[in-house]
């Protein structure tokens, strides 16, 4: 630990919002608001040499943001890992130059939450479907069956490659259908990369809190309809990570 300290930034709220009540942030340092002209940054002190972090720190980042939302704040989350020299730096390099942009986004995000939805194909179900639907795969599979592994190495790679492609096709087919079913209940949609080989959908939806029940109901309906075929994982409500952005700045 160094003597010097720096300032970690979790997110941006409105200056008038309830401040965190004695909340511990990274390294157990107290979370504080650094305010400037109507805006406030959620911050805490970190050692000057704070450059590497792990799971605990990620969770802390997430928790500080969530707690702000629980206090009733509209929160613009910072990406994980933003450290500024000190509170003065936060005011002068973040809050002041980006003031209009941040104000505008706070306005825009008022009353909205992010929901992340991931859909993962059931392995048995999707592979069976692929074998039934794709003749080349079915034939290659028949040809390989019962033969020693060493003798079919390249055929098996080819088979796997074809399956991976078929999974891509499934993804291209499934994702838009699900997104379109949910789009009417969301303000905006951000589609992410799959982070699992059988992941058919990874999308974030910006949803008005008032409409969250409707959105959830449709998710449930999809989940029921796709049961046994696709497993849905719903995370939220979250602060709007996927829907905030800083421009080049002033």
């Amino acid at each position, binding site marked *: 630990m160094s003597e010097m300290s720096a300032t970690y930034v979790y997110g941006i709220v409105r200056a008038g919002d309830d401040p965190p009540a004695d909340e511990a942030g990274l390294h157990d340092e107290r979370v504080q608001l650094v305010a400037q002209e109507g805006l406030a940054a959620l911050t805490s002190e970190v050692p000057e040499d704070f450059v590497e972090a792990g799971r605990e720190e990620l969770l802390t980042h997430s928790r500080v943001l969530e707690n702000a939302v629980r206090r009733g704040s509209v929160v613009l989350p910072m990406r994980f*890992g*933003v450290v500024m020299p000190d509170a003065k730096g936060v005011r002068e390099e973040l809050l002041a130059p980006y003031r209009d942009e941040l104000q505008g986004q706070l306005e825009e995000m008022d009353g909205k939450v992010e929901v992340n939805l991931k859909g993962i194909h059931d392995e048995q179900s999707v592979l069976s479907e692929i074998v039934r639907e794709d003749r080349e795969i079915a034939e290659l599979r028949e040809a390989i069956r019962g033969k020693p592994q060493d003798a079919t190495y390249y055929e098996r790679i080819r088979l796997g490659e074809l399956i*991976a492609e078929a999974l891509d096709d499934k993804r291209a087919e499934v994702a838009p259908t699900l997104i379109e079913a949910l789009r009417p209940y969301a303000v905006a949609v951000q589609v992410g*990369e799959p982070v699992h080989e059988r992941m058919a959908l990874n999308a974030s939806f910006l949803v008005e809190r008032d409409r969250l029940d409707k959105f959830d109901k449709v998710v449930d309906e999809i989940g029921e309809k796709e049961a046994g075929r696709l497993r849905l994982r719903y995370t939220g409500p*979250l602060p709007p*990570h996927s829907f905030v952005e800083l421009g080049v700045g002033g």
Partner: protein
Amino acid sequence: MAAATQMQPHRGGSGYVARSSSSGLYDVLELILDKGLVIDVFVRVSLIGIEILTIDARIVIASVDTYLRFAEAVNRLDLMQTETQGLPDMMEGLSEGGAESKTKGVLQGAKEALFGDEDEDEEGEDGGGSQRRTSSTTTRHRRKSSQSGKPSRSKRTSKS
């Protein structure tokens, strides 16, 4: 504003959807790392251990190992008598856990090494796999995760 209680996870519903609040670290990892407000010059903290998970997961989709695992998994479908066309009905008769467990160790194996058993874990409450992986000292900048996020393209070009 003033809707604090509404931020609690919505539960219930059909029971077909696994839900968690954002404490489900694995499911929000890429959001916290790749999204949000950022001023590049002040991004200083890099992750050890966890960040690699998201990157590897994307690369692994288009690897030979994955192909071989797919091939093995599809050959194992024999056990499920795919040919009989009775499968959709059979699937309904199986509990999800039952169906999963039969192929565990095929596709699941490598993924568990990456994520722990997150995918199967209804709550997915944390990156269990991350701790197992923190022994890796490699630190990569998060930017790589988005650059490497196009496994399907390189795979496609390698086709035929």
